[in-house]
């Protein structure tokens, strides 16, 4: 078995005076799509930021692709799509991707590829600020895909997208995983959980379950993953 792509041990994070993550342990297997699910405010974004290395942590160890999270040599191997549409609203889709591609050191052919992947090619010359929320998210996702990263950390990448596009993107995620990319995808939409190879269910800064869709269904006796999640989350810890 390959070493895990992400290995988190005893991670503690406090923001303000509030503990957000407490003593978190988890491993994410390489070349899989792992879903990170939980109610809003449970610490999903903080965990993702810790893995990418932009979160100040109190204690614990976060190892990504064999190196401490946030190391300089990981910057070309790990890509992050934050929840905020972290793209320039006063640039066109193409200009945004052009800039991020140059920083990532990839060619302009790649810009055209990722625009096609997220279905933004027809809007390439529009200013991002004039586009819809879903289109912001797609542009931001395209920017994360640019550098062909070994680990992709995507914070709610499918928010505000129509079902057809959402299905296409999940197809793209699995294609990437099949080529060896590891994906960590957060979502609060339970029907997306079924798309994941592995599931991390979070509540109040802890991992409630590190499982797979099939195991979760069996354990809870619920065919519907939304109900299964509710039954796990409502069980007193």
């Amino acid at each position: 078995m390959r070493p895990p792509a992400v290995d988190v041990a005893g991670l503690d994070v406090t923001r303000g005076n509030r503990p957000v993550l407490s003593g978190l342990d988890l491993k994410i297997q390489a070349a899989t799509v792992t879903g990170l699910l939980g109610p809003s405010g449970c610490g999903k974004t903080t965990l993702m930021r810790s893995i990418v290395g932009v979160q100040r942590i109190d204690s614990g160890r976060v190892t990504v692709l064999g190196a401490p999270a946030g190391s300089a040599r990981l910057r070309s191997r790990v890509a992050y799509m934050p929840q905020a549409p972290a793209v320039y609203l006063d640039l066109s889709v193409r200009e945004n991707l052009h800039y991020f591609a140059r920083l990532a050191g990839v060619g302009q052919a790649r810009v055209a590829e990722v625009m096609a992947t997220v279905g933004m090619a027809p809007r390439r010359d529009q200013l991002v600020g004039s586009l819809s929320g879903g289109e912001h998210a797609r542009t931001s996702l395209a920017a994360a895909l640019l550098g062909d990263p070994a680990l992709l950390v995507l914070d709610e990448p499918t928010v505000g997208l129509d079902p057809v596009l959402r299905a296409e993107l999940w197809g793209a995620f699995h294609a990437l995983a099949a080529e060896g990319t590891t994906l960590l995808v957060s979502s609060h939409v339970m029907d997306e959980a079924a798309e994941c190879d592995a599931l991390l269910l979070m509540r109040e800064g802890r991992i409630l379950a590190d499982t797979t869709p099939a195991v979760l269904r069996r354990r809870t006796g619920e065919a519907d993953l939304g109900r299964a999640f509710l039954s796990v989350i409502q069980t007193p810890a």
Partner: protein
Amino acid sequence: MSPRRALFTAERVLQQIRHDRRTIALLLIVPAGLLVLLRYVLDSRPQVFQAVGAPLCGLFPFVVMFLITSIAMLRERTTGTLERLMTLPLSKLDLLAGYALAFGTLAAAQAVVVCTVGFAVLGLDAAHGVWLVALLAVGNAVLGMALGLFVSAFARSEFQAVQFMPALILPQLLLSGLFIARDQMAPALESVSRALPFTYAYDALARATGAPPLGGELTVDVAVIALATVAALALGAATLRRRTA
């Protein structure tokens, strides 16, 4: 540090401004327009217009770049693009150098317009050459940019960021000696003015546009401007954190 990444960043910043035609127009026209206004306000006092208007040509870019940079950097912080940049192979120095290049270029354009209007049209006198005024204007603009970058870390909203102009720049303008000689101020204020970077920006311009021969003092002024710029950039770099709470 990678000069190429700094250039890519400068190009991106200029591209953002290029999409905003009105900002470009305001950048280029407003300082020249204010200078024309001042010329006719001081219609009966041509010596005062020379004493105030000539240095002003090189001070406008300082004020404007301070404002624009603090807003631009605040946007990078609040929209998440700074966080994204911090996960990419881009050093903080590349980012700062990119900003300095982009806003330095804009400042040069602004300086050319305002100096043309001031010295060629309104008849102001640049005793030691217009090129010296223009060069000082660009240097001052980079200082203003560096200060704007630094203070943007202390603003949580654009409302706060614009207030930093009257809070931090206007007092420096009043104390610089532009309106009244520093030795005629209350002694305490004169001492304070000596510690403010804007004072040296004004002083250099007053020497460049004044009749007396340029002495070693201009070198001192320029050195202080350069040091203050480096210090502000270092402080600005310290506020760009890869890891945040």
